[in-house]
């Protein structure tokens, strides 16, 4: 009971902190933009962590789905004049269908083969956007109307924060549900799971559809906030960032992965230029080297990521401690 109260207090504190942060930041657009971008990456990282860490499907196509969602909504708004809301709904439908198709095609692919397949898929989508520049504006970028007229930086912050909290809540609930247990069983041993009655095809396709839709939805919403989308979003570099964020946060936990993404986005922005002991340092592109170092150190010294051990300590260990205490008591009872 005490453990549950602590858990609830931690969650409430984090939500409250993030809810009040715009006021603490004095509504400064730069900081709000950084946080909005951090939340967007957190949604993508957590959903990729659900797909790769929980279900064991190492897809490199996640950013392509985000781009697909953004371009679907943007093109519909531009050529059919639909409102962003309908554009986003269409993005959900398109990414659902696309995720279903990819899920079916990837059924028999594992490990490196799945990774290569999804890299190829991302490249195909990126090249389509580039070559059909008369429709998509190619490298110049496609302009998207704002989510709603008069949206402020604070509004953008809260839209992405709410999206992040909803997605994290959904993924947390799913991870603990029958769906989550089956996905982990499939990750561990697909044949053994099937031999125990798990419809592995259905769950593998479902997790592809679910995470594709989350990526597409996040992409559509975020780029309506930013106002422009370019094919750069589908580059392998972007996907590498998502993977690195997830590894730094904690690959097997969508929540830890989301914290990793937020930390890394803030870190990457902070490292552009900062003052320490009165000395101003501008790292520029070198900040990626520092970020790489953090990734290497995490892989070497904290394979479970930086945030997963904290989540494990606060949310999972109490249950284990209870079980151990119960067992000790049972042994003592027998002896006594």
């Amino acid at each position, binding site marked *: 009971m005490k453990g549950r109260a602590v858990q609830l207090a931690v969650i409430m504190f984090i939500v409250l902190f993030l809810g009040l942060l715009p006021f603490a930041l004095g509504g400064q657009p730069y900081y709000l933009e950084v946080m909005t971008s951090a939340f967007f990456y957190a949604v993508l990282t957590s959903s990729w962590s659900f797909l790769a860490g929980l279900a064991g499907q190492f897809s490199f196509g996640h950013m392509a789905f985000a781009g697909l969602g953004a371009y679907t909504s943007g093109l519909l708004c531009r050529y059919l004049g639909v409102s962003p809301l309908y554009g986003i709904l269409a993005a959900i439908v398109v990414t659902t269908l696309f995720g279903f198709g990819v899920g079916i095609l990837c059924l028999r692919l594992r490990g490196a083969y799945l990774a290569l397949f999804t890299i190829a898929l991302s490249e195909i989508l990126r090249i389509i956007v580039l070559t059909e520049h008369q429709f998509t504006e190619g490298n110049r970028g496609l302009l998207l109307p704002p989510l709603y007229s008069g949206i402020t930086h604070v509004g953008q912050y809260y839209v992405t924060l709410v999206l992040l909290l909803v997605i994290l809540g959904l993924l947390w609930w799913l991870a603990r549900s029958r769906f989550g*247990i*089956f996905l982990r069983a499939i990750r*561990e041993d697909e044949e*053994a799971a099937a*031999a125990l009655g*798990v419809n592995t095809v259905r769950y593998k396709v479902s997790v592809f559809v679910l995470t594709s839709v989350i990526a597409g939805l996040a992409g559509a919403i975020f780029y309506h906030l930013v106002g422009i989308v370019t094919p750069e979003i589908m580059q392998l570099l972007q996907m590498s960032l998502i993977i690195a964020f997830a590894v730094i946060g904690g690959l097997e936990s969508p929540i830890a992965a989301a914290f990793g993404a937020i930390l890394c986005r803030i870190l990457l922005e902070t490292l552009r230029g900062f003052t320490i002991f009165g000395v101003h340092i501008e790292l520029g592109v070198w900040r990626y080297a520092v970020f790489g170092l953090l990734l290497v150190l995490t892989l070497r010294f904290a394979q479970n990521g930086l945030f997963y051990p904290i989540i494990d300590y606060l949310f999972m260990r109490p*249950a284990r401690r209870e079980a*151990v205490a119960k067992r000790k008591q049972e042994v003592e009872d027998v002896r006594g």
Partner: protein
Amino acid sequence: MLEVRDVHKHFGGLQALAGVSFTLQEGELVGLIGPNGAGKTTLTNVITGLLKPTKGQVWFGGERIDGLAPYEIAMRGLGRTFQVTRAFRRMRVLENMLVPALAIHGRGHIKSLRRKALEVLEFLTIDHLAKEFARSLSGGQQKLLELGRLLMLDPKLLILDEPFAGVHPKLREAIYRFIFQVNEEGKAFIVISHDMDSIFTLSRRIIVLNCGQVIADGDPLSVKEDPLVIEAYLGEEKNEPGSTRAEEASFA
């Protein structure tokens, strides 16, 4: 209950099964033996849907099941374990147990399923490990977990592939107890093992495979004395310099 009709399985030019046929009645406890490469595991994979037969049919409970997906076969009450233990290592013992139970019953019964899982673990003497990760269990305990998981599927027929391999004698007793008790409840078993002592102690009927064919099918005594079996399998074992004293004793 189970009928295997003229099942063939080819892997390219290799013929793993060459016309295997047998039937199994409800509640039977059958031992399946054969030298390495005889086709025992291939036959199990064909029966449980992991492999499609090249030719032939498999019937279970009056329904043809070859061609069905493994999960569909499992849902019909045909469960199996694997030669090499395949516990879900990064999942807790209790979660391992819940996988088949949830597949059958759904989330609505989670509390009663948890209770049942703990009862089964208690029966297998590993209930104190319920909250541990499966990877932290010993090899023998993982075998017991696999059996418990299988029981949660509530199968009518259990196929156990090498259940005694690498198991401590004390845990072996627990596996014996499991097989006898579950069999008494009316569930049928096919037990595949190289452990001759165990197979001849457990089984009332033994099927011998060699080169993908059934070369003997009968009670343990007749199988022991079958010249084909002695020549193809038992004799070969006896003549091997490394054969165990126990195996030799069982055919003396």
